[in-house]
């Protein structure tokens, strides 16, 4: 069955956000960057609106051909990821439109803030994905690393099937463009293989 959940995070992985901005582990951000980072972090956390929708599906595989229970797809990389699985959990999640509002604003008045909000927002939605996967793990048992459209040879157009089967737009408000872009932009869909006991 389809479940819709909401969440709230108190923080995000700052190292991950810095990585999106080109920093390596050993690079220490300058003081002015650090304060910009903190400011943007606060703004992003304040506007977060975490939502997710998920459901489980039976999985049948034949070589690289996969019957995901809601769509058939040919993908070597996904087949590899799902080796040995007989079920998957499909989820879509978003960190909310507030971050896009901030981006629209800072894109016009402060490119530096726009870049940092972008990175922090990405780190936040990653954190949200981790939380969803942990929840899936509690409900369904051990899982494989999540796998999204566009990874390896998994076609982006599979997004359309995902949106249809989970009623993503109706349930959590993410919209899909003709070119399969999601808005709010800080959104993720992924397939999580459930490891057979």
């Amino acid at each position: 069955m389809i479940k819709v959940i909401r969440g709230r995070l108190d923080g995000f992985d700052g190292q991950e956000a810095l990585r999106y901005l080109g920093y390596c582990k050993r690079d220490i951000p300058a003081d002015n960057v650090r304060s910009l980072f903190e400011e943007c972090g606060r703004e992003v956390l304040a506007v977060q609106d975490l939502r997710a929708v998920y459901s489980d599906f039976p999985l049948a595989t034949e070589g690289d051909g996969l019957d995901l229970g809601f769509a058939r797809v040919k993908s070597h990389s996904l087949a590899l990821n799902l080796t040995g699985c007989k079920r998957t959990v499909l989820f879509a999640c978003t960190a909310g439109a507030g971050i896009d509002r901030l981006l629209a604003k800072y894109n016009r008045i402060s490119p530096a803030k726009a870049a940092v909000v972008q990175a922090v927002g990405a780190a936040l939605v990653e954190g949200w994905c981790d939380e969803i996967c942990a929840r899936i793990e509690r409900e369904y048992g051990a899982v494989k690393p999540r796998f999204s459209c566009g990874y390896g040879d998994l076609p982006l157009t599979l997004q359309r099937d995902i949106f249809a089967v989970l009623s993503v737009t109706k349930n959590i408000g993410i919209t899909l463009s003709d070119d399969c872009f999601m808005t709010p932009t800080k959104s993720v869909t992924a397939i999580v293989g459930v490891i057979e006991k």
Partner: protein
Amino acid sequence: MADFRDLLSNNIIVLDGAMGTQLQKSGLPLGVMPEEWCLTHSEDVTAVHRAYFQAGSNVVLANTFGANFLKFGDRLGEVVSAAIRCAKNACSGFKDAFVALDIGPCGKLLKPLGGLDFEDAVDIFKRTVRAGVAAGADLIFIETMNDVYELKAAVIAAKEECSLPICASMVFGNDQKTMTGASPEAFVALAEGLGVDALGINCSLSPAEMTPVVERILKVSSTPVIVKPNAGLPEEVDGKTVYSLSAADFAEQMRALTEKGARLIGGCCGTTPRYIEELIAATRGIQPKPIENKGLTCVSSYTQARYFGNIPVLIGERINPTGKKRLKQALKENDIDYVLNEAVTQTERGAHVLDVNVGLPEIDEPSVLKRCITEIQAVCDLPLQIDTSDPVAMERAMRVYNGVPLVNSVNGKRESMRSVFPLVKKYGGVIICLTLDEKGIPPTAKGRVAIAKKIIRNAEKYGIVRGQLVFDTLAMAVSADGSAAVEALEALDCIRHKLGCHTSLGVSNISFGLPQRDFINSTFFAMALTRGLSAAIYNPNSQEMVKTYKSFLALSGLDENCAAYVDYASSVTAGAITEVGGRADSANEGGGLTYFIVKGLKKEAAAEAARLLGNTAPLEVINAHIIPALDEVGKGFENKTVFLPQLLMSAEAASEAFKEVKARLNPSDNAKKIKVALATVKGDIHDIGKNIVATLLSNYGFTVYDLGRDVAPERVVEAAREHGVQLVGLSALMTTTVVSMRQTIELLRVELPHVKVCVGGAVLNEEYARTIGADRYCKDAMATVRYAGELEEGLS
């Protein structure tokens, strides 16, 4: 058959419950669009509707929630008419039974958050409405909307296609906001402004969870309220999906909301005919609360509503070219960023509403006003005042405005009322009414009040209520007429207290021709506030005005414990008033323009540039200070000792310095000849990378034409030709849009073979760039600057 509007005026109307979950029970597989079943399983669809009518519903929503042109294309008419037919077949034999055309979100997000243009959204909804009306729907039910802007598009579509009753309902979360951040009050303001017949909330929450939002809606709505909640949360029991609230519990919770005043009640996800039966049983005998006109005066943005009342509303006047040289120049040069900065600064300084006036003889006012309104709304969520004397500009701006605008202005002239009132009736709005007419401004208060009465009478004829009118009794220069202030205040007092309408003044006119105008302005402002001034157009940068306002609130008991006053007072030092936001002392460390730019200190960089310009030629400031600073940071970036945020902070500081320089630079002084057009290619809406490139290129003195995102190949060619650019920069983030990048390059090669093309973006690399025929792959913004620099050298 009875009329829906008649039934609504005196009764509680029972809506239906869920459709999707019911169809799934009768076999609709997941992933199949429920609307398809109107064609293939019409009996099943009709059976669901009939069960709701049997349970006692007055209205069923046809199975058209997702029926739009984007999903069904040319089959739309067929699908909608089949859906309406299913519902019509079900209603035969029932009394007071209505079929609504159900309209859900179109599935795409509107600009500025998404890529869908407002007018395109209107068009999508119009197609559905047209099909529904042709098929015989009795009313239009717009529901499960997440974005007030999309709701506005749908309502306008319905109003322009038919005169059927319109119900409009949105989804609110536990945080009492819609997904795009609208408060219940902002939603009510917008929906009422558009003149819907009923408004409310559906989906997402249980009745009990909805209560706070329903209460907020009921408090401010003068329109019947819809409540259509979910049956709690879905749970899995023995492999089946069940909802957490039983029909009895649902009905019990709904009874409480109905007693509070909900007038259209039903269920959303998880509810069944059984829930509707229980709902009817639980609410039997509840007397419908009469619909009262709350008499509120309210403007709104896409997130918040601002009511006129005890706390006077401050309208920031900075976006109005009258007497502002720099803004005039910005408008003429299409420099929207300057306008946006004014919007953000005024917001930070405490304005409640922003005036937007772009009336200059040499510009195309309708298109510039529309653009300014849209762009300001992307960076600022204050309500806006649409300020124009051009009815065409006014209509275009009101149409795209996301919220209920303050409209400036109408006056007692027949022609003025005839052009403004119909627009306000159609789009909603609060109107600033100037107390003048064909004979000019009456010298006495009595004459101005008479005009106010005339305006009220006339507005009523258009269906515009008193609450929508705010009167400006016209403060004229006291230096020319000693009684100017007295008469304006007398008229103001009378209109506020005898006619019961709100008032507004453009305060600063009063001091025209006098020295130290702020002294006069702020005292006049205080006088007007004590006489009942509801709103003032003011300069948020004027400390005298802010001081008066804060003090007034404290003295009038409108500032609890004088907390806001104390807060304000501690931000200013006695006698000397510091600039809001503070200014760091530029001499305390390091110093020099290069230093400030490298450190990314915007204000300091601007101040230092201004100081330098006192004794240094503008070009010298660029070449000896700005460029070396950018080079230092740029090299650090290339060597990976400086990272993107620092690079951009420096770029912003350089931009500030550059603005100072530009003000003194002759156009012929601009040393760089290379002009660059930049675009994120068609299909792609990611533009951060492209914006960074634009910022850096302009910093280095190149002329940049930023064409935006999702730009078609033809448009790139057209702009490149029009501006005579030598370089086109294209950006794409996704593999799917590299195709449009290739098409753009191909078209450029045919049309403008001499133009160079560089490309960048996450999915590109050297090889890929070569394959699609680009001249250069630029891995980042600095690489683009270097490439433009190479081309520049080639020219000289």
